[in-house]
């Protein structure tokens, strides 16, 4: 199949997906768990892809994602809380110092820009470090950012360690899907541009890339800022999804979760990250919940089932994937019609041989 045809088919598939979601939304009650999982899943896809851009495509092992999401979430919430609700939200800080609010999209844009700006600043010293040192330094920065946002002195802006709420949020699933879809599309475009090729060159061999005339510092910083921009937007969307936020949510555990999603999906695969996000969220928050409930089949009490078992099973599955399916669901391939055809052809072909 030609390249053009491929793009058309992919676009059609995406449209079909959107249609399915819209139909689902019509058919299911608004607070059905499936819709909640879809919302959270698509926000996590965005964040996972942004992390993949850094870890999978540029080879920069960063663990600062939660920190940038925190900045995004706060930027969105602080800027969009309606003026008349501020007195009750900032109840310990006399209504806060910011006495205006901006529309939703401006808020989301601001969350991305602010996160990217922070990334630029942090990147100045940190991007000189390599592999695990970069990881631990970015992890450290995320913790420092969290401490600042909890600081009482900044309370009139950030509300200290207290919750921010009453800002506009979404109820439909279509909204986060569209926003995340556009953001991911932009990232895909970046990956396929000459910058993207430079990123991959840096990942594969820094010295060779430099020898080819790629400005390492510039490209690394760029990847870091782009990734943080979208992590920030993801943070803003997460704030909308949760309808109240608090810096406590954005702990290093959150970064680890996203990293595991990226690994499960396959480092260097955008579609892999998306698929893994939905699977991860659905398993951890929905499908495996039955493991938490003590169940009796007839008189037989199923052993082990009690609160917390879900998480044990879940982490065992993750460990199994990390150890035995090291490339994740997609490896570094992308989901495409072509790929599926090949996959089935291969399988079909093999079966034929067996029959013969």
């Amino acid at each position, binding site marked *: 199949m030609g390249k053009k045809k491929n793009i058309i088919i992919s676009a059609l598939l995406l449209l079909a997906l959107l249609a399915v979601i819209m139909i689902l939304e019509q058919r299911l*009650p608004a607070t059905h768990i499936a819709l909640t999982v879809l919302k959270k899943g698509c926000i996590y896809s965005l964040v996972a892809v942004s992390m993949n851009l850094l870890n999978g495509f540029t080879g920069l092992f960063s663990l600062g994602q939660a920190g940038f999401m925190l900045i995004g979430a706060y930027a969105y919430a602080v800027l969009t809380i309606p003026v008349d609700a501020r007195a009750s939200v900032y109840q*310990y800080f006399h209504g806060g110092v910011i006495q205006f609010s901006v529309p939703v999209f401006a808020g989301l844009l601001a969350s991305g820009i602010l996160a990217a700006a922070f990334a630029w600043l942090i990147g100045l010293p940190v991007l000189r470090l390599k592999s695990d040192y970069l990881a631990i330094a970015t992890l450290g920065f995320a913790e420092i950012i969290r401490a600042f946002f*909890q600081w009482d002195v900044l309370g009139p802006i950030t509300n200290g360690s207290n919750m921010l709420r009453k800002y506009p949020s979404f109820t439909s699933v279509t909204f986060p899907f569209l926003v995340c879809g556009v953001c991911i599309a932009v990232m895909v475009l970046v990956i396929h541009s000459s910058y993207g090729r430079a990123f991959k060159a840096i990942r594969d061999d820094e010295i060779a890339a430099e020898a080819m005339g790629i400005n390492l510092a510039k490209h690394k910083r760029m990847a870091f800022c782009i990734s943080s921009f979208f992590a920030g937007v993801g943070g803003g969307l997460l704030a909308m999804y949760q309808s109240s936020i*608090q810096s406590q*949510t954005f702990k290093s555990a959150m970064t680890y979760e996203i990293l595991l999603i990226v690994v499960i999906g396959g480092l260097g695969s955008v579609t892999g990250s998306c698929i893994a996000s939905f699977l991860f969220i659905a398993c951890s928050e*929905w499908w495996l919940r039955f493991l938490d409930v003590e169940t009796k089949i007839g008189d037989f009490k199923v052993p082990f089932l009690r609160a917390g078992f879900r998480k044990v099973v879940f982490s065992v599955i993750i460990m199994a994937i990390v150890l035995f399916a090291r490339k994740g669901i997609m490896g570094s391939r992308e989901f495409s019609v072509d790929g599926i055809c090949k996959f089935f052809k291969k399988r079909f072909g093999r079966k034929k041989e067996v029959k013969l």
Partner: protein
Amino acid sequence: MKKMVALAVCAAMCFAGTMSVSAAETVKIGVFEPASGDNGAGGKQETLGIQYANSVAPTVEIGGTEYNVELVVVDNESSAEKAPTAASQLVSEGVSVVLGTYGSGAAIAAAPTFEQAGVPAIGVTCTNPQVTEGNDHYFRICFLDPFQGTVLANFAADNFEAKKAYVLTKLGDDYSAGLGFYFSEAFQGLGGEVIQDTFPEGNADFTSYITTAINEGADVIFAPTSTEAAQLIIDTAASQGAEMPLLAGDTWDSNVILSAAEGKNIQVYVTTFYQEGGNEEFDSGIKEWINADSTNLANNGGNDTVAAVTAMGYDAYFTALEALKNAGSTDPAAVTEALPSTTCTGVTGAIAFDDVNGDAIRDTAYVKVANTETAQWDFVAEQGVN
């Protein structure tokens, strides 16, 4: 092949997850409580009260039909992040009313989900004002932090002639920050001086905090925290030789605190909703029920001391039943309608809702002190705001 197996497993899980047992004549009550995380211990005790109440009254008559009450328990992991999914899990299960939660943070985070779904929720011991504020679907049966903070400030000023209070709260915990704020406000209003300090999540070393309190010459330490931190604070205060009394809110009314304080030279005062011995029948009934099952005993912290939150859970369940009866239907909307006018006489006192935010009308709190020899609570006073 591996992938196919994985797919099959996923599909099976999908199926199992969506499968729900439906039986005729059942009304579902959601129990939205933490079973893990910071508030796990308290959440479990509260759930025990609800489960005990369910064992006492497993059926309810709604609109002339006898219904079995089924409890649907989900764990909100004490986290504002996990709360929305846990809440929508309950909504998806089709519950008529939700009870919970212990810890205000998760309640505030889940409130919009319940509101959107039109399912009423009865807060059991979430004391932060923001839980019910501006939300028609969140009610609660406990007193609020402004009240509790004032009670404690009065108590500190009256009983210990305290001039200086050291207030230690947890960063990022709405309950802790809120109660600390209201206490400080009231205490300063009484002419006292307040030194504020916060500790981050996961902090285990309270030596420096206690040392600061001693160095500053504080007359009382006020530490509205979760029981996890409380254990450490009590332990450190005792080993640092802090002689001033420790004050705390309703969360500290737990046998975890009693066992931490046992045999130590320390004074611990708490305000709470219920005093053991307030209702003999309830006390003996629940003790027997707890002792009969090893899981329940473990969830209650290893002994049968009745925590106030357990009594509150018990009352919340009966309030929900009353509301269902008044509504005459299992439809969440009807229950929401019926709740504001519902009243119930529980073991912790009469329960009625005000018409501003649907908060309980309560004007007294019990003050108790931990007896470090018997590991029991001793009743000190019934305190109101004056």
